[in-house]
């Protein structure tokens, strides 16, 4: 048996033999086992339980003067909290969706909490390549649209955190947050 020629296992007609099936079963068994071993190793690189536990942060809004913004860290990301002036709110509300690069969540009313129009909370990461835009302090460059200006590649955001000038493709992301009182929010 062991010495019989290879031709016996592969008839000239090219038919499938029992040995082909056994080989397939053996190889797929080995592949499944390798995958089962590899998965725990790969999954160990996902966020660990202690990282996931650091999921929310509270922000006191009282020290933020009108026209100013602050940065808080949430899950290692910068969160911009901006106290908008009445002019900035008006400017943000008057923009039509057709003027936007990214119309998704493009209305200013979709980007702030109802009744809290003066507070804009966005993830402060440029949607182009991940730099942190300038513009929280009134003395920072804020770009032509009065919001934020990214120093890396010149993307500009308006007073609602919407991208108005490329190369960034998307508006600044909105983190999950809620008002705990009129002067305090909880991000996450």
């Amino acid at each position: 048996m062991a010495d019989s020629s290879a031709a016996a296992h592969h008839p000239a007609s090219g038919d499938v033999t029992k040995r082909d099936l056994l080989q397939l079963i053996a190889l797929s068994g080995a592949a499944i086992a390798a995958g089962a071993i590899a998965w725990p190793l790969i999954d160990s690189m996902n966020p660990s339980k202690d990282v996931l536990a650091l999921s929310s942060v509270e922000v006191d809004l009282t020290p933020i003067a009108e026209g100013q913004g602050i940065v808080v860290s949430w899950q290692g990301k910068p969160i911009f909290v901006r106290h908008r002036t009445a002019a900035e709110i008006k400017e943000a509300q008057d923009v039509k969706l057709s003027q936007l690069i990214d119309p998704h969540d493009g209305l200013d009313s979709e980007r702030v909490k109802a009744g809290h129009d003066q507070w804009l909370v966005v993830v402060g990461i440029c949607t182009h390549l991940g730099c942190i835009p300038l513009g929280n302090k009134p003395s920072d460059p804020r770009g032509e649209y009065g919001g934020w200006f990214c120093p890396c590649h010149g993307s500009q955001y308006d007073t609602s955190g919407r991208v108005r000038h490329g190369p960034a493709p998307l508006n600044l992301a909105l983190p999950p947050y809620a008002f705990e009182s009129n002067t305090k929010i909880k991000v996450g």
Partner: protein
Amino acid sequence: MAGLHKSEFANPVINWIDTRLPIFTMMQKEYGVFPTPKNFNYLWNFGALAMVILMIMIATGIFLAMNYQPNTDLAFNSVQHIMRDVNFGWLIRYAHQNGASMFFIVTYIHIFRGLYYGSYKTPRELLWMLGVVILILMMATAFMGYVLPWGQMSYWGATVITNLFSAFPVVGPKIVTLLWGGFSVDQPTLNRFFALHYLLPFVLVGVIFLHVAALHITGSNNPLGIDVKSPQDTLPFHPYYTVKDSVGICAFMAFFACFIFFFPNLLGDPNNFIPANPLSTPADIVPEWYFLPYYAILRSVPNKLLGVCMMFGSLIVLFVLPWLDTSPVRSARFRPIYKMLIWVWVAAFVVLGICGAHKPEGIWVILSRIATLYYFAHFLVVLPILGKLERPLPLPESISQPVLGRRSGGGPLPGAAPAKPMEKA
């Protein structure tokens, strides 16, 4: 074009690569058609098993290193973080921790196979010596890895083992200070042990490559210990031994899994659940089980320097084993006296291991001295003399002959064609 390799592979992509870099031809030659003695028993699985466990150790180790902190303040807690917070961290760490024990079980059996069947004899002396280098590197790696969790046994194990070097006259204390990077086992020690624990496995891979390369020059030994005489004595490595190794790997993985999932701390020491305390030595201090025989040798000698020399000597003597054993016959099957004495040596090794686990008092001191004596006498006295005195049993003419002879009275196997050479061999 003269330098290009002429590839025989039909697949055009493989052929293109193989023409320029003949790795496929090499793999086919060394692991495909490689002529391998056809009478291997399952003891010949253990080299491949050691390779598998090394790969598991490197893979799990890399992922552990992503979460471990080599800092005396953080190390212990970072291991607990791995156990509790990191996804599957418990599994990866238990696989790595028990994997070290598995590596030694497999390697000790692999070495026993070499001793029993005389695999260290000419022309495989260098192959054997590379194996001894691998064993010593493994021990260094295992020792430094055991220090990393920074528990009590880690700390005091590191202290005791590094202090071994203080036994050497004049330079001893300077060597110890150099190893520590300070005046006790501390942050510099932990940090460098982590670096070396990460490095040495890759050095191991290099030496194992040489070990395997040397093996493929001499060819494998076999249970009869006689040379391959003709292609009829061999089988192509694939599929015959790839499949036989796979069976062994499956059985081994089941054994390994029992430890990981059911008895993960059986081979560990409870003292290592206590964070390292440089001001208090635990009452019962023992090394990991795989070091116990050497530890027993160390303690059996009442003189510090001599004890250390004997302990290192127990490994160094293996380097010259090929020249100490004067018998030209390899396999213990044909050496009636050696066949008994090799088991006496194994018994001495096991007794040393048991002695190492007990406090050196009363009967354990006497037993460990007797066992140490035989450990060395076996290599230094018995083997050189036995080779001259022993009358070996008659060796079979070839690997094929006893197999075929037993089954059908010397004739060929029915249905087989033993006279026909293997097509590719």
